[in-house]
């Protein structure tokens, strides 16, 4: 298929144009311009779908689109420097585009119901459009710089949306927290970009892949660390910030201060997905830098830690927020253990079901006007469609067979199990894998807990229950939920009903996801002879594979070894069975606890009281960051510094010159009066007495002081000069 700018750019430009139109004319348009935004994302979806179909039909891992243009060129003489921006779409990008546009479309559609009547209805859609276009721009980007640009634009949008209700002080704190926490990661990301740029001379993805393939990274160090490690670490820090990984996870739970659809967008399709997407894009670098154990560890800790916090949350959205962090942990764990494909699949599947979950939660919250689960209960009678959709998603996230979560998450866990036990990597991956499995037990539990508390049982707050209107099928309320919940079925991703290759449905393209999304490490050699072409829109879609590839996997390759396919498959089967058992136990446990009420949760609370207290305080991270580091450290330091600057430095060192001169003046006066008058004159008087007894003892006379000085100076000069 022949691509021109017109066939790709609308994916980004349509929502962006919607943003521009709404920003300037939103208030004058009918319905404050919400339809512009929906239309924009709809158009983007159509274009993305077209591209996806093209890639799907081509069905080749070698296939990619790379087009770029010069943003600006600073070359002069022999100093060459230009920045190219461009589009790079490979299979992963195509799938990602489809997911983002699709999910975002439904979120937009849902928002027209959810946000209707809000004071700043139009502004909401304006920001949502920008947000989506930012994410789409990031996915389309062919280089790290423009990725960073869109990455930051998303940061801004999330900031604005989290602080959307700016009358609330809390929203202000939450928005700053989100922006600043992610900014910590962003700063490192930028540093990583700089490091790569300096070495490679460019930051476009093909160039970076080529540089890794050609070993250009070797031999360089940055402040004592090997370049690949440094750059990889910095870029992964970007992921940590954006994808709310340990230890920068604190912002995401607070992000629910924003309207619920925006949470859906942040948690599912955009913001947090961008972090994992970046790690996946830069996977070869992480591997080259030997960072995979570290990444796996971060992922494991996050997956486990967030899941434990989710256990005790009573706020509907908070449970979902922590589940997001936990699931992102799984994705990062997937990256760490080399489950590249599975991690990406989990990104996609998670986006779908998490979007659906949040929209459902939005539907519930909008109906009952509370977010507290203890006030809900029994809502399944009133919110039928929401209930169905939400259960689908819960099963998906729990990893129940036939649902998408099972396909993706269990492959991650399978890979983790494999690298931990079979791949001969020692104990490196043991802890992350173990944490992942514990998390896999906790996930169904807290999700089911949420479902049971919200929809099942008897209404706990009759007032709330009575106020809730029974729901009807509405095109912009529950239809998006239902459509999204269809895609929580695993079959779309695995091609087979169970996800392990049994009951194939898609025929020859059965394992399409697995086949198409190939790890760049495995296909790095296609970039080994990559060279940049002349400026302008490059027409090349498909790169010829070099005839004789001299590239081979470097020896001592630090990434998890997946060579043993037999063992891998074996581990997957083990993992799958293991996790099915775990999930079953977990759901049963939740059932006992919250439906049958045969186990009292309070018992566990008492048993682990210290831990529960830690959980309630979110493991004290907020305390550490805000109270200790910022309040006690940073602000105090700042105040001290500012005081030093104006109170000490400026006053004494700068204004001090004035004081010094004044002192100089005074002391010269003093010199006149004391030294010259008293010592000089009186001393001379004494001397005169000795030589001439006739003269009596005299006192100083002012004019005579001058004479003394005069003579004194003369004598001095004579003494010095002769």
């Amino acid at each position, binding site marked *: 298929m022949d691509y021109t700018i017109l066939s790709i750019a609308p994916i980004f430009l349509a929502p962006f144009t919607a943003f521009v139109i709404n920003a300037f004319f939103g208030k004058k348009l009918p319905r404050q311009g919400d339809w512009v935004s929906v239309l924009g994302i709809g158009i983007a979806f159509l274009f993305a779908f077209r591209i996806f179909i093209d890639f799907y039909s081509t069905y080749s891992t070698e296939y990619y689109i790379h087009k770029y243009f010069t*943003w*600006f060129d600073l070359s002069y003489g022999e100093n060459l420097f230009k920045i190219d921006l461009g589009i790079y779409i490979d299979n992963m990008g195509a799938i990602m585009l489809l997911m983002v546009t699709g999910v975002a479309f439904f979120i937009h559609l849902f928002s027209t119901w959810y946000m209707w009547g809000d004071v700043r209805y139009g502004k909401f859609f304006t920001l949502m459009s920008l947000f989506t276009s930012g994410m789409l721009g990031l996915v389309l980007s062919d280089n790290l710089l423009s990725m960073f640009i869109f990455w930051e634009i998303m940061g801004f949008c999330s900031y604005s949306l989290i602080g959307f209700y700016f009358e609330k002080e809390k929203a202000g704190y939450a928005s700053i927290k989100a922006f600043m926490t992610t900014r910590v990661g962003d700063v490192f990301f930028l540093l990583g970009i*700089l490091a790569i740029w300096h070495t490679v001379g460019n930051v476009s993805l093909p160039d970076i892949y080529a540089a890794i393939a050609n070993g250009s990274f070797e031999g360089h160090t940055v402040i004592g660390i090997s370049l690949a490690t440094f750059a990889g670490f910095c870029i992964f820090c970007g992921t940590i910030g954006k994808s709310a990984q340990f230890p920068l996870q604190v912002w995401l739970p607070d992000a629910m201060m924003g309207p619920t659809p925006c949470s859906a967008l942040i948690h599912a399709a955009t913001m947090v997905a961008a972090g994992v997407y970046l790690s996946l894009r830069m996977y070869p670098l992480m591997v080259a830098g030997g960072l995979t154990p570290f990444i796996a560890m971060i992922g494991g800790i996050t997956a486990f830690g967030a899941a434990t916090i989710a256990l005790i949350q009573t706020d509907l959205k908070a449970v979902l927020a922590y589940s997001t962090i936990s699931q992102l942990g799984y994705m990062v764990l997937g990256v760490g253990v080399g489950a590249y494909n599975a991690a990406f699949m989990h990104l996609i599947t998670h986006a779908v079901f998490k979007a659906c979950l949040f929209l459902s939660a939005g539907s519930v919250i909008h109906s009952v006007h509370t977010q507290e689960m203890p006030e809900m209960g029994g809502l399944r009678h009133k919110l039928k469609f929401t209930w169905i959709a939400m259960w689908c998603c819960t099963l998906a996230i729990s990893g129940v067979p036939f649902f998408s979560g099972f396909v993706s998450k269990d492959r991650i866990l399978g890979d983790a199990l494999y690298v931990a036990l079979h791949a001969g990597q020692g104990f490196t991956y043991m802890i992350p894998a173990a944490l992942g499995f514990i998390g896999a037990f906790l996930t169904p539990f807290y999700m089911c807990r949420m479902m049971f508390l919200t929809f099942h049982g008897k209404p706990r707050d009759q007032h709330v229950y009575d106020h809730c209107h029974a729901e009807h099928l509405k095109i912009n309320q529950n239809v998006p939920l239902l459509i999204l919940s269809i895609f929580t079925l695993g079959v779309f991703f695995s091609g087979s009903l169970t996800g392990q290759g049994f009951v194939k449905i898609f025929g020859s393209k059965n394992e399409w996801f697995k086949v198409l999304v190939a790890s760049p490490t495995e296909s790095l050699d296609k970039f080994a002879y990559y060279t940049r072409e002349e400026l302008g829109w490059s027409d090349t879609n498909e790169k010829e594979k070099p005839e004789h590839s001299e590239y081979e996997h470097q020896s001592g390759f630090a990434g998890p070894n997946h060579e043993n396919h037999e063992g891998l498959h074996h581990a997957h089967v083990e993992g799958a069975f293991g996790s099915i058992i775990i999930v079953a136990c977990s759901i049963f446990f939740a059932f006992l606890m919250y439906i049958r009420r045969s186990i009292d949760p309070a018992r566990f609370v008492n048993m682990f009281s210290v831990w529960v207290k830690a959980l309630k305080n979110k493991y004290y991270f907020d305390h550490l960051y805000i109270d200790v580091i910022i309040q006690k450290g940073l602000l105090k330091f700042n105040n001290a510094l500012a005081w030093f600057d104006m109170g000490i430095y400026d006053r004494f060192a700068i204004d001090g010159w004035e004081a010094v001169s004044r002192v100089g003046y005074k002391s010269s006066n003093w010199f006149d009066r004391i030294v010259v008058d008293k010592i000089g004159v009186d001393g001379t008087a004494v001397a005169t007495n000795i030589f001439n007894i006739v003269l009596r003892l005299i006192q100083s006379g002012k004019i005579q002081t001058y004479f003394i000085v005069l003579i004194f100076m003369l004598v001095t000069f004579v003494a010095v000069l002769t």
Partner: protein
Amino acid sequence: MSGILNLILWLPVVGMIGVLVTPKGKDQLVRYISLGATALTFIVTILLYLRFDESNPNVQQVFQVPWIEQFHINYALGIDGISLPMILLTGLLFFICILSSWTITKSVKAYFALLLMLESSVFGVFMSLDFFLFYVYWEVMLLPMFFLIGIWGGENREYAAVKFFLYTFFGSIVMLVGIIALYYATGKGPDSFSILALQGGHFTDMTVNVFGTDFSFEKLFFWSMFLGFAIKVPIFPFHTWLPHAHVQAPTAVSVILAGVLLKMGTYGFLRIAFPIFPSAAVEYSTAIAILGVISVIYGAFCAMAQNDVKKLVAYSSVSHMGFVMMGLAAMTIQGMNGAVLQMFNHGTSTAMMFLMIGVIYERSHHRWIVRPDGTKGYGGIAAHLPRYTVVFIIGMFASLGLPGLSGFISEALIFLGIYQRFTTITVIAVLGLLIGAAYLLWMYKRMFFGEPSDEVKSYSDMNAREVFYMVPLCIAVIVFGVYPAPILNIMKSSVGQLVELMAQFQ
């Protein structure tokens, strides 16, 4: 020979004379005359841009007549890619400042006359090709600033005005010694005051005797120039005049001070200190980079502690100009271009910030985020003043360096440039981005979030005039953030030439 530079230079003076001869009591006429003069000047600067040959790295539109023949001092004007962006910025900002000063009622005639005089002298600095002329304009600029701060400023205006004047004068008089020394070092020839002819590192091997010790001529006078320009920029540790001057100055003067005057310092480095003393500049680039990074971090930390919003932005200027210094110290094509671009971008974004503070100050007559007694100053503005909020956000995020707005690309270029030479410094400097975001957002949070107090509810939103003068800046901030090529194209040849020169001495 071209008269267009003369036109730009003297149009404000004509306006000033017009203002001065206006009969007493016709304040409105005074305002319109100044507006007309600055608008016309701005239009001519745009014409100048249209006439500019971007591919030519050398000085263009040269106008030269002898001034003092014995000393070979010329009235020589010319522009190149480094000065043109500054001239465009100056033209724009002064036009805006006249509009923003519409509400001034104290000695209107004198105010506008001084403002126009200031404009002319700023143009003079950016256009001079003769060192003597440059110095004269450099100093002349102090006079209107002194009075503008001292008469129309805040409570502590006199202290600030005197401090500003003395501090800058100190720097420039040391520079003067350097200027004269250069004149004699070149043998009093016909080109001895020509900035262009002095460039290229002719002074590497000379020595001078000061205080009984032999110094390298190049190094000594590099530092003497450095002092003059560094105070103007200002870099740590010469920055303390800035918060005083900014806080006390009236809005328009703050805008000019931050938007244009600080750039004169970095412009001095680009036009004078670096090309004339290249080997010293290269040798001391590490020191400059370190001072730059200290400014970045120090300014940002100090900004975070401020409760006076104008002081906060003033410290942010210290921080942002630190980036420019780092870009200069990089001496690479990215860093230098980034620095010049940052000069322009900081000019627009910080001008926006100061103008916005001025707008709110006109309504509230205070600038406290948190008052000294601990009570809340502003708060909840967002809920009450939507238009104001939007413009403020644009300005704030531009100065925060949000991609898509102008600040980002220049900072990124600076980082790219400096990373190649000083990796460790870069690693520290990126923290500045973090703190930079922190203090601005913290300020924004405290000013805009929450329920508006009764006091805030009494403010009116931006009126048509205020919106009108903010629009060009918003456009500049957004357009050059998305597509910086027009500005970069102006400067790249000239900057490239400078980088090549510096490279010869590395």
